């Protein structure tokens, strides 16, 4: 069966409406838990979109994104507490250092393909967690505590309201989505997808595989580190088991995969559905401490994967295709 490809992209007006809702959301919903959840939706949305650059477009399926997340978190915490560097600048430096780490650590790993690459990313994340747990200079297992400062945009600390945090993470989230939007429409984006589809063919068409793989890792690591730095400012402490938790890597990959990889809308939809699901099942069922919330959460994911293996974007496409055939 030959397949014609049309209407591949998420309609832009939907994104526009979504953005509008996101901008006024905290004014409509005042509930603190809901606002917290919204912040996590955006934080995981940011990371899942960053994952999408590597995994969805370039085909480098990472299950170790937490390595970049943790390094970002630690770098900004460290720069702030040891050198008094402004959190905003620390955030940027953290991103750049992590991007460099991504390139250096990624160089040998990017020669691996498919599942072997994925396994290597798990190892990389674990090595980071264990290294930071034993590194006395950065507080070893105790981590780093950030001093509480006066609240202002400059200090990146807000105590009376969650709103500034919400808008900051929304801003970062919008930036990563813009990057993916323009990437999709650029030569680099085409090169990423070509490498994902067939490395030999890509090389035969003049693409320097190593360079473009490392470029996609660097961009992905940069934005994942921004999420890490954000969490540092949000919770005012970092410790290895918290910012290098393998569950973060898994959640990020799952948000992207469940949403539908290799498209702009996928990670956004994934984060919108999965994160509230996880937060609310935990709030309702997590108190007994028997992991009932995780069971329900896991069961929902399994059911979803069976019913819609192409992710939420697949569901979206099916619905819009149906609408087109019977108007």
């Amino acid at each position, binding site marked *: *069966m*030959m*397949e*014609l*490809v*049309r209407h591949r992209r998420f309609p832009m007006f939907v994104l526009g409406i979504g953005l509008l809702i996101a901008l006024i959301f905290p004014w409509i919903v005042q509930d603190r838990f809901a606002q917290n959840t919204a912040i996590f939706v955006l934080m995981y949305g940011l990371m899942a979109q960053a994952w999408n650059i590597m995994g969805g477009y370039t085909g480098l399926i990472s299950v170790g994104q937490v390595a970049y997340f943790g390094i970002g978190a630690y770098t900004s915490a460290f720069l702030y507490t040891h050198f008094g560097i402004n959190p905003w600048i620390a955030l940027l430096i953290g991103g750049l250092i992590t991007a460099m780490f991504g390139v250096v650590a990624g160089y040998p790993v990017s020669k691996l393909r498919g599942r072997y690459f994925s396994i290597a990313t798990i190892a990389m994340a674990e090595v980071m967690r264990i290294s930071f747990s034993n590194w006395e200079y950065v507080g070893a297992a105790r981590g780093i505590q950030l001093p509480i400062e006066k609240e202002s945009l400059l200090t990146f600390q807000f105590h009376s309201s969650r709103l500034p945090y919400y808008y900051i993470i929304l801003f970062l989230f919008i930036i990563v989505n813009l990057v993916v939007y323009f990437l999709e*429409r*650029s*030569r680099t984006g*085409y*090169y990423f*997808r*070509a490498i*994902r*589809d*067939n490395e*030999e*063919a*890509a*090389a*035969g*068409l*003049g*693409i*320097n*595989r190593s360079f473009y793989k490392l470029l996609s890792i660097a961009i992905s690591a940069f934005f994942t580190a921004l999420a890490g730095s954000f969490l540092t400012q949000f919770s005012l402490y970092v410790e290895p088991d918290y910012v290098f938790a393998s569950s973060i890597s898994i959640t990020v990959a799952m948000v992207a995969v469940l949403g539908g990889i*290799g498209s702009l809308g996928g990670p956004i939809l994934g984060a919108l559905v999965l994160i509230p699901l996880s937060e609310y099942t935990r709030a309702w069922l997590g108190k007994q401490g028997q992991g009932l919330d995780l069971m329900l959460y896991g069961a929902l994911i399994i059911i979803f994967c069976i019913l819609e293996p192409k992710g939420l974007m697949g569901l979206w496409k099916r619905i819009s295709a149906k609408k087109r055939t019977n108007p």
Partner: protein
Amino acid sequence: MNTAILQVEDLYKDFGGLRALSGVSFTLEEGEITALIGPNGAGKTTLFNCITGFTPVTKGRILYRGKDITNWPPHKVVRHGLARTFQVVQILDDMTVEENVMVGAFLHEKTVQGARVLARQALKQSGIDHYTEHLAGSLPIPAKKRLEIAMALVTRPALLMLDEAMAGLTPTEFRDVQELILNLKKEGVTLVVVEHVMEAIMPICDRVLVLNLGTLIAQGTAKEVAENPDVIKAYLGDKYARNR
């Protein structure tokens, strides 16, 4: 006016203990169509892979327009004007036909719009412009082979190497490919064609190279090669060579 576009000098390729190419030397002249033939396992594809940088060379030299390109990475080889297709089609399954060709077009055109224009031209030239919006992986085999040629063409090669572009095609289909090859020659492209379908390639080539068990056993015009006893032996066995 003949000048060498590609010189292969004493090329060896070992896969562990297996010698796939053994002292292969030849020269390709600018603007000619060369057929590379030989029984299965003769080393034809390995030779392609060595020249285009997909497999590292064990020993020997490859000169392209006088420049030593031995063991260059594939993307660098393409940029210098040496493109190829693969025996087993290598296309980008999850991208559209047009996008497949656009990826190659980006070599000469940085913008998406510009690349699309070049891609459309190449698709037309290879006769598959009616598939533009189809998913490449869903095409029938003959169209996939055409697409691969379009992808190679859009990189604007001076030397194009086709690895069994006509295998599995019906006589009508391979006549189209023959015509395409002859048109490319007219435009000044040098071609090396690996082919098993003798009737498809013999009438259109200027020269034939015969590879057997990793060694070049004959080269010359189609007629010379067809009468060469070593070639007959390689293809049909000792008995037929003696009977002639």
